[in-house]
């Protein structure tokens, strides 16, 4: 454990909050007032008693020593996780003003910590390669192969149906598509779900939304239809594709894959963490940059509506851990393996490139995965510049620039970026693609912490 003495910043603590209400409630509790008997240990535990509305104060313990992320325990009845008390306690601790002194853990806290660490040890031992292989594949490889074949048949039927649907659309013309409305696409998407092709279903659903996205929608609809057609065709002829491209097609169509790439241990810098949510699911994306391997990787984690996804990695920390890549050409997605130490603050930054090199990199990435919307890129020495209704990131030392994507224009993060720059060059990490550049994190020209923009 290397946690000793390193306290997180308030931003990093608040990034753990499952939703904005908890974030707000937690920040109110991040003051000495309601807390008593609080303390922290060298082993990375923080505890305290929080006065609530009842007569008995809540007992709150947080274990930040665990490399797989902080663990929380609170006697309050809240179903939020972490609850506002745990957030408040961490904020108090992050404040570092002596409100949480080094101390011996009281019995109620020690009990839980010991139990927890005992369990964690046991689990690690069970996961280690020395232990016997898990019996999940007990039905035998033959059964698994048959299942996979049946599924592939269903996807093939779905893809063929979708091809028919696209051909009908083009036969009648896109101009008519505006009237047909959302319902037809929704129905087709439902058929793709039945065909167990989630990836196709998601793309179909997006097609339905395009006619409502303002001027120029026919071109966007046409492009996406064509790429969907390309994906269908890729699936129908997957046997004739190179193995890497076939893997990309399989994952784009929505077949499950496991991250079976070799584990890469590195000091992974957390560049960005942001959530997108629909009615059912919150998807969290975490961008990491390996300071030794120079690889950029994407972690995805999901939470049912209203609950925070499992992985929480505040921007600006560095994590000593193993990552395994998912299969597929040009695949940036990875899974988090073993963590060797809890994340700690760092001054390290990813190396940057120019706008011209950034678009070239996107173009090259399309060779491996033509369905790619963007690639992760760090731009060095760029200046946010207003350009008509929009913004662009202009090369400080040249005359090229990348437009900021329309979606990113309306986010508050853009203004943080502009304020940080003040007309001077900054380093910006983001996603660069055919719609433009989405800034996700920035660093000032001089020394300074990473500023999250999402």
């Amino acid at each position, binding site marked *: 454990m290397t946690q000793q003495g390193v306290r997180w910043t*308030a*931003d990093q603590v608040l990034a753990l909050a499952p939703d*904005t*209400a908890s974030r*707000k*409630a937690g*920040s*109110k*509790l*991040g*003051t*000495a*007032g*309601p807390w008593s008997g609080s303390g922290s240990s060298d082993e990375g535990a923080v505890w305290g008693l929080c006065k609530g*509305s009842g007569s008995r104060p809540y007992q709150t313990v947080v274990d930040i020593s665990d490399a797989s992320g902080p663990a929380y325990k609170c006697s309050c009845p809240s179903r939020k996780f972490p609850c506002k008390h745990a957030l408040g306690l961490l904020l108090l601790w992050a*404040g*570092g*003003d002596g409100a949480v002194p080094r101390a011996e853990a009281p019995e109620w806290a020690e009990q839980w910590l010991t139990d927890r660490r005992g369990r964690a040890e046991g689990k690690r031992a069970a996961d280690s390669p020395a232990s016997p292989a898990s019996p999940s594949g007990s039905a035998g490889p033959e059964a698994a192969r048959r299942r996979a074949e049946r599924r592939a048949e269903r996807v093939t039927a779905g893809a063929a149906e979708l091809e028919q649907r*696209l*051909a*009908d*659309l*083009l*036969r*009648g*013309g*896109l*101009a*008519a598509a505006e009237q047909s409305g959302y319902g037809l696409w929704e129905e087709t998407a439902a058929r793709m779900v039945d065909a167990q092709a989630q990836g196709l279903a998601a793309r179909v659903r997006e097609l339905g939304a395009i006619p409502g996205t303002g001027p120029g929608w*026919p071109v966007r609809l*046409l*492009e996406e*239809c*064509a790429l969907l*057609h390309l994906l269908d065709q890729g699936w129908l002829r997957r046997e004739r594709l190179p193995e890497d491209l076939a893997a990309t097609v399989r994952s784009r169509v929505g077949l499950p894959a496991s991250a079976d790439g070799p584990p890469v241990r590195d000091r992974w810098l957390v560049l960005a963490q942001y959530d997108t949510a629909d009615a059912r699911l919150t998807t969290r994306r975490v961008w990491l940059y390996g300071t030794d391997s120079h690889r950029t990787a994407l972690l995805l984690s999901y939470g049912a509506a209203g609950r925070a996804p499992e992985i929480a990695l505040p921007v600006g920390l560095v994590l000593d851990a193993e990552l395994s890549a998912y299969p597929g050409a040009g695949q940036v997605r990875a899974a988090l393996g073993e963590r060797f130490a809890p994340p700690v603050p760092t001054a390290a930054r990813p190396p940057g490139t120019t706008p*011209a090199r950034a*678009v070239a990199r*996107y*173009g090259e990435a399309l*060779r491996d995965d*033509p369905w790619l919307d963007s690639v992760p890129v760090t731009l060095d020495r760029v200046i946010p*510049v*207003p*350009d008509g209704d929009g913004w*662009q990131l*202009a090369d400080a030392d040249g*005359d*090229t*620039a*990348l*437009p900021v994507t329309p979606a990113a224009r309306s986010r*508050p993060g853009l*203004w*943080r970026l*502009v*304020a940080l720059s*003040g*007309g001077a060059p900054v380093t910006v990490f983001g996603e660069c693609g*055919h719609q*433009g550049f989405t800034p996700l994190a920035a660093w000032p020209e001089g020394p300074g912490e990473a500023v999250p923009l999402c």
Partner: protein
Amino acid sequence: MSRTTAAVDPSLPDAWEDLVTTALLGTDRRTPAGCVPGPEAPVALLDAVAVATVRRRAGLRPARAAERPRPAPEDPRPPLPPAAARRLTLLLSDRPGTSGGGRRGTAPDLMELLPQWLAAANARGFAAPPAALPALLDAARGRTDLRPAALRFAGPRALWLARLNPDWRFALRSTPGGGTSVPGPDDPEGVERLWQEGLFAERVALLTALRSREPAAARDLLATTWATERAEDRLMFLDSLRTGLGPDDEPFLERALADRSRNVRATAAELLSALPGSALAERMAVRAGACVAVDHTRDVPTIVVEAPHECDAGMERDGVVAKAPAGRGERSWWLGQLVEAAPLDSWPRRLGGRTPQEIVALPVADDWQGELHAAWCRAAVRQRNARWSRALLGEPSAPEAGGPGAVSLAERAKLLDTLGAAERAEWVAGFIETHGLSEAFQLLGVCAVPWAAPLGRAVVDALNIARDAGSYPWSFSGVMGLAERCLDPSEASRLDALLAIPDEPENASPGAGGYWSEAFQRLVTTLRLRAAMLEELSPAGA
């Protein structure tokens, strides 16, 4: 990335346009180039579009850089200590409207502490962290009372930012010349150029800044272009002379009395009447003096009032508004304006050498007392006359001080404002000791923060009494909120005894004790938080 520069092949855009047109019309109506018409045409079209789409995306070129904004001016102030920067983030993340509302519990109201935090940070001269500027500007946008302090703290970069975002235009309007864009005293040509060529907001800022530095220079600058300014602009410019008003301004203001615009004339008259030695003030003293006299023929000397019978041209020129608002008699309306504009120091001479106290104590005949005293109050506020304010306020413990006497609470608050901070606090403390808290809110609002010790104790004692009386704390939520923000943090330890839940007296409202304990807890928490905030901002504590 512009699509027009995207193509590698110059012939491609045309081919692309052709594909798009075909797709829009449908292959039943139009056959794509190089395809056989028939059932396979849509698939062929999709194939061609797929190739073209990937090709277009892969061939993207960066766009041409637009014109770069001028860099933001340097902020020479030192950066915030890290702990204070974190605190600011927390205070700014506590935006109103995001909570569920309802009972406040024991947690402090962070947004309410922002004004104090800003004042402390400004007093210590720290620069705002650039990334916090958008949140700071948004907070100032929502709350006009925050604007001056927030914009001062936000500094030159915030003004630079505000030029780029229409949502923050208010910052350009409401910056009182604090921006470094205003030329300094060593740059007379810059001042002249900005005055001649600047936008209205820039010129107001320039004039305000100059006025606070060199009042005479600002007035002279204004005089150079006075005749050519538009009426609305003249009014705003004239208003900025309020700062540093002095006898030297009289000739200029006298000329403005003949202005074409009625509002400009009224403002000039108002400013002149605040100069007790001005000719206008003298004329008003004569007019007002003719209306008010002491009648010695009665049993007790009594003030008799003979309101003016007409509003002549001379009065109108001196800013008296002839037309009374609906529902007011025009004679009393004129009287009020005359008395308000007459120098207060002329009254003792006029009324038998009496002191202000004695004058205020005299009975007034025929129900004129309300009108007359109200006009004197307005005069005392306008002329910032502490002696008259004291006399009109009376003793804080006097029974009528609490009731709806001749002088309303709002007027009292304004009168208090003309007194020194210590005297103000003492008067309000005396008021609370006698009359309790129910009427004290407005008066507490004008007291200097943190409250002086006697005032703080008076408020805490009164809260304690209110609790013992068995009422609910939310009847006092206004005062409670003020106490959280204004009580001296060093008083926190004296409040510990109040945190316990008391035994419920028989006549108390059910559960009130628990709510009071909660309210006091919030008070103590907030005081501790304020102490921590100030600690974080002191350079030694960084």
